[in-house]
């Protein structure tokens, strides 16, 4: 018995050892078959007209998902050395139809060694068309300069911009991955990522980029200039924390950073930055003074000369009035006496320092039952010149009194520079949206939390 058992055990052991070998041999055979299949289709594509690309793509995908590695390999090879338009088109179409997780796996396996610039351009186009938030890191990996000291290849840079734009437009959650992508990205790719986030049109981009200011000082000089672009789509009022971070950079030792911060403060209409900017008007750096002066003019709509004493005097008088009379004037807006309300509107319209604050109070009068007061409120909002007035003015376009509508319409045109008709629907696109809660929470739930 024992020899028989030993014999049986030996046979079993042999069989167990042979099975993986057989499986490997079977895998290799399948692999070779798939590679041959792809090669054969591409050989046919070399002679085919570009209109056959759809049919060729279907042929490439015929064996199933197992063909994915060979497909991606062939795509990169074809991009580096194109043979025919039909071949590259067929490969693109086929790759675009792979499941996202399959595509991601195959591409991730081919980051190192870095393929040619042409191949990387192809990958970035593919990711831009099909990728999602989780592919952001892959985009960065393929866009990274190769070798590192070479800098960003111009063609790769352009493809990177397109990929980021597509990705961020398709998947709101991608914004949440931007900080981690920035940390992993080579220094040269950071401006691309920041710009893409800022111009994504996502309401949460402003807050997301603002957090980078607080988290990473090295990014300040890149992020600050893009904050005004991000603010275009941000809900109002703007994130106070971000504005505070911008103001903090006004006192930076780095001159370029100071300039960027001054410019950003003006573009963001941050009234709280005015006292700091007035101080900076006395800075010995003429370039900084010019930027600060421009920012003050933008913030206040006042055309005072770039003389620190003029601005200081104006600031002191505004601060004194705000402290002593501002509250009273705002209270008077709620008075039952029409004359008192009118006087308060007139008075508030002359004070620009806290114009966003006065705007919020004056905007309440746009709903007043007395039409002449509604009209005066629109005129005051125009004089104050704060973008915070836009929603109330758009609402006033639906007023039953034509004089109120005309006043609101004139104010909108003056504040925005747009010559749209007095139709609320026409102005809706200019209003910053309220960020959908879903988007904000998607950003907050990103991998950096």
């Amino acid at each position, binding site marked *: 018995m024992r020899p028989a058992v030993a014999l049986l055990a030996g046979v079993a052991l042999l069989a167990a050892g042979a099975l993986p070998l057989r499986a490997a041999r079977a895998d290799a055979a399948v692999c070779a078959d798939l590679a041959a299949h792809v090669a054969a289709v591409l050989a046919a594509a070399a002679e085919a007209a570009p209109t056959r690309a759809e049919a060729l793509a279907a042929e490439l995908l015929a064996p199933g998902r197992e063909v994915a590695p060979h497909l991606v390999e062939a795509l990169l090879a074809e991009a580096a050395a194109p043979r025919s338009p039909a071949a590259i088109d067929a490969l693109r179409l086929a790759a675009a139809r792979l499941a996202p997780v399959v595509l991601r796996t195959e591409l991730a396996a081919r980051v190192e060694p870095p393929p040619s610039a042409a191949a990387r351009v192809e990958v970035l186009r593919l990711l831009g068309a099909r990728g999602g938030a989780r592919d952001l890191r892959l985009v960065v990996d393929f866009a990274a300069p190769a070798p590192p000291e070479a800098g*960003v290849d111009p063609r790769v840079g*352009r493809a990177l911009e397109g990929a980021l734009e597509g990705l961020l437009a398709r998947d709101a959650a991608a914004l949440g991955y931007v900080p981690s992508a920035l940390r992993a990205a080579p220094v040269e790719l950071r401006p691309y990522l920041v710009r893409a986030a800022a111009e994504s049109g996502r309401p949460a981009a402003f807050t997301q980029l603002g957090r980078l200011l607080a988290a990473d000082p090295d990014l300040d000089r890149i992020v600050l*200039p893009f904050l005004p*672009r991000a603010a275009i789509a941000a809900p109002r009022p703007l994130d106070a924390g971000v504005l505070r971070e911008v103001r903090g950079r006004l006192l930076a030792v780095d001159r370029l950073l100071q300039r960027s911060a001054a410019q950003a403060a003006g*573009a963001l209409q941050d009234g709280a930055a005015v006292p700091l900017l007035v101080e900076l008007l006395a800075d010995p750096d003429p*370039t900084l003074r*010019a*930027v600060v002066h421009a920012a003050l003019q933008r913030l206040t709509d006042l055309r005072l000369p770039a003389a620190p004493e003029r601005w200081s005097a104006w600031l002191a008088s505004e601060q004194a009035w705000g402290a002593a009379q501002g509250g009273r004037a705002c209270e008077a807006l709620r008075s039952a006496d029409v004359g008192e309300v009118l006087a308060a509107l007139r008075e508030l319209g002359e004070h620009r320092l806290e114009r966003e604050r006065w705007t919020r109070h004056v905007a309440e009068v746009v709903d007043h039952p007395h039409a002449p007061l509604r009209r005066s409120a629109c005129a005051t909002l125009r004089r104050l010149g704060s973008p915070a007035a836009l929603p109330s003015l758009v609402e006033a376009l639906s007023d039953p009194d034509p004089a109120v509508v005309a006043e609101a319409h004139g104010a909108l045109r003056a504040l925005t520079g747009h010559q749209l008709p007095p139709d609320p629907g026409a102005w809706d696109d200019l209003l910053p949206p309220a960020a959908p809660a879903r988007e904000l929470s998607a950003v907050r739930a990103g991998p950096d939390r």
Partner: protein
Amino acid sequence: MQTSRSHVRRDAGRRTGSVLVFALMAILVMTVVVTLLTQLSRGQDAAVSGRIDDSRAFHLAEAALSEGMTAVRAGATGNVGRPDAPAYLGRGAVWVTATPVDAETTRLVATAAVGSGRAALEAVVEIVEHEPLFTAVLNSREQLTLNSSVRIDSYDSTLGTYASQAVNVHDGAAYANAGGDVTSNAGIVLNSGATVLGDAIPGPGYSVAFNTGSYVSGATAPSPTSFAFDPVDVPVVPSTGPLTVPQGGTHTVPPGTWGFDDLDIERNGTLTVVGPAVVVVDSFTGGKDGRLAIDASGGPVTFVVAGTYTVLNGFENVPVADSPMAVAFLIAAAQDIVFPSGAKVRGGYYAPDANIVFTSANEAWGSFGGNRVDMSSSMQFHYDESLSDYWANQENGGDPLDVLMWREVAVEPAILLRDRRDAFAALGVAAEDLPAPADAWDL
């Protein structure tokens, strides 16, 4: 019946006296009629002559108005002569009175008197300041990203080579002048280590972003207006066919305006163009190691390319000895303009609808304006300051003067209309004492 005969005899004597009177009356009437007819004829002659003179005066007034516009273009007041000291032109007397309307606008009234003819024309003209076409080394409609370690400065090719002017040092590297401005209608990004010795001016509402180690020596405030990337106006110049410089061959294009179909400088070929010259081509191809030699000692050289611009490895634009590098390529097509690896690029390039790509290891002296400018890392750009002197943005066909209004007006002083003597007599001047219009400008 004697009575009737004597009655008749008496009547006959009386009738003989009446015939004379009637005859005299007839002669008188005829005289008056002839005189009237003569005067009528003379009057008609005078009227015809007057109309001819008025027509001449009209044309002289137009010529005088044109002279006034020429004076305004040249920066003069536009006044040409005066009523009491007119200019002499076409056997008549002319003068132009200029009245400034505002800083850019002038009202010109040109009056002409020739023979008995009188005419006056009024025009309101405006001087339009055309911005130079090449004001920065890089000018893009889309966002401008300066790749890592790119360096930008300026020099003046009329003063010699860049190397002879690069005597200053910044951050351990030599440079010539700090006038290497970069501009964009959108934002500007300086990637790590990029250095601009000049201004970096983004478009309205945009900013300049600085990556680690980047630097701008000048201003960074956004421009209040965008640069108008006006399309290239391809002039209509009759073509003499294709121009091909064969492999290793040479050819020279003398000064003037030239039209060719395709211009092809084959491998190792050299085309020399002597300025001032305008060369209009359907396409431009610079072959491997070919040369475009520019002699701009007498004036700039302008290539207007309606179609594609292609250069291969080793092709270069070079100045002939002591010539400034005053050559500009105005490219109308939208295809990418790609400078191959290692290319040394000289001149001004304006391609408002095309992207300009410097692939790798390039260096450039001149100015490059296009829809988008992409570059490799560590590139060096040297703005040629002399380029801003030659080419203006081609709005209004390049004419700085815009005619806003033109009409006929009443001749002043009004007495000239009543006094239809010879013009010089009516004005009380001697023709031989009057200057030519070009000599009668009031500067």
